[in-house]
């Protein structure tokens, strides 16, 4: 998709008709729209959303999207029109989407009623020059650029940093799901499980013999319980994330308060260390379980090993094992018909019969090999047992150290919390109280998640047992058999769909993670790594000499913004790749990046680094920036790629002390509005 033109009429600050044109060749891929705060940069970003999907991100909803000046010029009872038109090129066709909304002025105060619902129209000129019109424009638009994905291609700078928080993992998971078309797989699984299999089970139960029916009823009951537990887990997980978002916000607030910033940072560092140690303890526990299940029996076999060794040694001394003469040796003598002592071994001779008798007495080579194996394993067992004890001792010591450190961390955290809780600064005191509440609430939700997870595991075990029982029950009639077959076939389909879903999500996560890292490293330093972990959280790691790869606990604003931007650039890139792959589901595409304030409050170093990579982020990049963000360094890096530039000239109402005009702000007597001027008016 390449955006060609946006026409605006009476949308938000934009009075009358305005037009923006965009280029996207190699040397003109960047379009910059300059404007001061309040001039309509975020409105322009929302213009894309409204024309495509009929929604905006404004808290006030769609009631206030009509330009106030246009409304003030409309008589009471008359109609004012708002419309947007977006022209873009996609895979050889040129699309024009138009959306219009009429409003009726209802009072002297600038109040309006929307007349009906805005409906888009979509027509396009195809590769052969023919004109086509979409019968279901909303559906067609959604196929071209899914609504769930739009926030990644049209993104707000204020939101970008939040992507790097743990609480954003849901958003990242959703983005991956949409990008891979996994929602379809999700829905297929849901429809199969919730509706089709349920019906088939009922049918099978109706035709079934009593024992089979009873098992089916038990199976259905367990499945219902599993669904309930999954629902509980999902609810707890959502609440947990909600609490985490609030905690992230509280932590960010602390960093704005100079007096407590250091303490908040220390706490964050301690909490990261705590999490890391808890992870290590979990790993230790898993390793120990693994070792004990593999070699734990050695601890109890000491006497048995000694007695078996003695028996075998006795056999060896007696010459019973291994036998002194090998069967192949006797076979060779019989074949040559001559003994090593020179006796002829003619067929039917007494000597030959005696030798054949020996051959039948000797043990087979398999038994000999087994004997050798057993003896060598028995010899190794005491050594292995000592190794097991030594390893368990090392781990116990490590565990004890970890637990001591955890205790110390808990004490330090308590101290910090109590010091912040008794702060003289009222805001800090209040924040700390809420933080403690949230931490407790989060702990409760985590407990619910663990309980639900354990219950699901137990129920799945029960389900497996029931399924085994069902397999054993023979069908009593052809009808019953057919119903059973259909049910089992539907279950096999659901199982494949679920496994496919998981495999696709994992594969995409790995792939995207590696792309995020490539972009991240190209912007930042090479000894820093970025990844999307198994919980779909964006993480940063660094190489510490002598220690190796370690997580970065205190990510700076710049690092957060770079990793988030890397993620978005990787999504754009993956969408492009998927377009080439021509898959069944969401087929991806070449998308532009439209960024409102991508530099946020970054310092000069990061701003410059990001600016350097902006031309590489996507085939077309549209940036909205204020003068304070559009520094000389940014301009120098982007200038060779800028195709079009616009300046938003904001006409603000005159107020006392604010009457001076500037290039970007003009004072007006009436309601505010913005005019779009081509070119860059400079600082």
């Amino acid at each position, binding site marked *: 998709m390449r955006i060609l033109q946006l026409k605006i009429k009476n949308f938000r600050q934009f009075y009358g008709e305005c037009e923006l044109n965009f280029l996207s060749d190699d040397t003109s891929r960047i379009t910059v729209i300059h404007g001061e705060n309040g001039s309509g940069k975020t409105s322009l970003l929302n213009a894309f959303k409204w024309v495509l999907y009929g929604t905006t991100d404004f808290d006030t909803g769609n009631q206030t999207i009509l330009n106030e000046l246009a409304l003030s010029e409309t008589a009471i009872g008359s109609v004012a029109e708002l419309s947007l038109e977006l022209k873009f090129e996609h895979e050889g066709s040129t699309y024009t989407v138009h959306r219009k909304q009429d409003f009726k002025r209802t009072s002297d105060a600038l109040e309006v009623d929307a007349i009906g619902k805005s409906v888009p129209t979509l027509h396009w000129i195809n590769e052969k020059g023919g004109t086509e019109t979409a019968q279901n424009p909303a559906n067609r638009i959604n196929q071209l650029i899914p609504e769930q994905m739009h926030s990644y291609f049209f993104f707000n700078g204020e939101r970008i940093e939040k992507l790097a928080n743990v609480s954003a993992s849901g958003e990242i998971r959703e983005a991956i799901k949409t990008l891979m078309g996994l929602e379809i797989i999700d829905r297929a699984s849901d429809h199969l499980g919730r*509706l089709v299999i349920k019906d088939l089970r009922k049918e099978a139960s109706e035709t079934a013999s009593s024992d089979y029916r009873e098992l089916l009823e038990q199976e259905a009951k367990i499945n219902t319980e599993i669904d309930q537990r999954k629902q509980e887990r999902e609810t707890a997980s959502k609440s947990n994330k909600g609490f985490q978002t609030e905690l992230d916000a509280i932590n960010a607030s602390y960093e704005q308060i100079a007096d407590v910033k250091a303490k908040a940072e220390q706490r964050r560092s301690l909490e990261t260390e705590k999490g890391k140690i808890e992870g290590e303890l979990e790993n230790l526990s898993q390793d120990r379980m693994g070792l004990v299940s593999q070699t734990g029996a050695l601890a109890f076999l000491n006497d048995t090993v000694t007695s078996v060794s003695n028996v075998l040694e006795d056999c060896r001394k007696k010459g019973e094992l291994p036998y002194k003469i090998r069967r192949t040796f006797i076979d060779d003598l019989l074949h040559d018909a001559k003994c090593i002592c020179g006796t002829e071994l003619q067929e039917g001779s007494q000597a030959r019969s005696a030798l054949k008798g020996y051959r039948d007495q000797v043990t087979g080579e398999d038994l000999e090999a087994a004997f050798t194996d057993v003896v060598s394993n028995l010899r190794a067992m005491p050594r292995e047992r000592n190794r097991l004890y030594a390893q368990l001792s090392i781990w116990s010591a490590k565990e004890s150290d970890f637990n001591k450190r955890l205790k110390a961390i808990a004490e330090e955290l308590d101290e910090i919390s109590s010091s912040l809780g008794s702060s003289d600064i009222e805001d800090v005191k209040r924040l700390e109280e809420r933080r403690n509440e949230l931490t407790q609430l989060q702990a409760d939700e985590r407990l619910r998640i663990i309980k639900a997870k354990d219950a699901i595991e137990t129920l799945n075990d029960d389900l497996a047992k029931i399924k085994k029982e069902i397999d054993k029950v023979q069908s009593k009639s052809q009808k019953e058999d*057919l119903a059973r077959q259909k049910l089992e076939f539907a279950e096999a389909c659901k199982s*494949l769909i679920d496994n496919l879903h998981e495999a696709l999500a994992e594969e995409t996560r790995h792939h995207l993670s590696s792309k995020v890292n490539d972009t991240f490293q190209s912007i930042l330093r090479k000894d820093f790594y970025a990844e999307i972990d198994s919980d779909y959280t964006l993480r940063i790691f660094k190489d510490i000499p002598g220690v190796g790869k370690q997580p970065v606990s205190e990510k700076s604003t710049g690092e957060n913004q770079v990793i988030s931007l890397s993620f978005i650039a990787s999504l754009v890139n993956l969408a492009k790749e998927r377009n080439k792959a021509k898959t069944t589901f969401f087929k991806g595409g070449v998308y532009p990046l439209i960024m409102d304030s991508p530099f946020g409050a970054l310092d000069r170093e990061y701003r410059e680094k990001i600016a350097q990579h902006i031309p590489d982020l996507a085939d077309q990049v549209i940036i909205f920036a204020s003068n304070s963000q559009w520094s000389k360094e940014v301009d120098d890096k982007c200038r060779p790629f800028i195709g079009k530039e616009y300046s938003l000239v904001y006409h603000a109402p005159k107020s006392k002390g604010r009457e001076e005009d500037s290039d970007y702000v003009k004072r007006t007597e009436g309601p505010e509005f913005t005019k779009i001027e081509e070119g860059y008016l400079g600082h």
Partner: protein
Amino acid sequence: MNERSKSPKEVLDSASPRVKKAVNEILKQEQEFQGYKNTASAGKDKEIAQRIRQVIEREYQR
């Protein structure tokens, strides 16, 4: 069996051709319904469930 470490190709390879074919048809049906996703209702759910059911039934009518 834990499918966690399997690639999508491995997952598909381990399924029977019959199941694979049916799943493909089910997913196609779901894709046709994609346009309705923002207006999901019980009636729509029932309709797609019926279509999926037909895919399963067809396997046993041959």
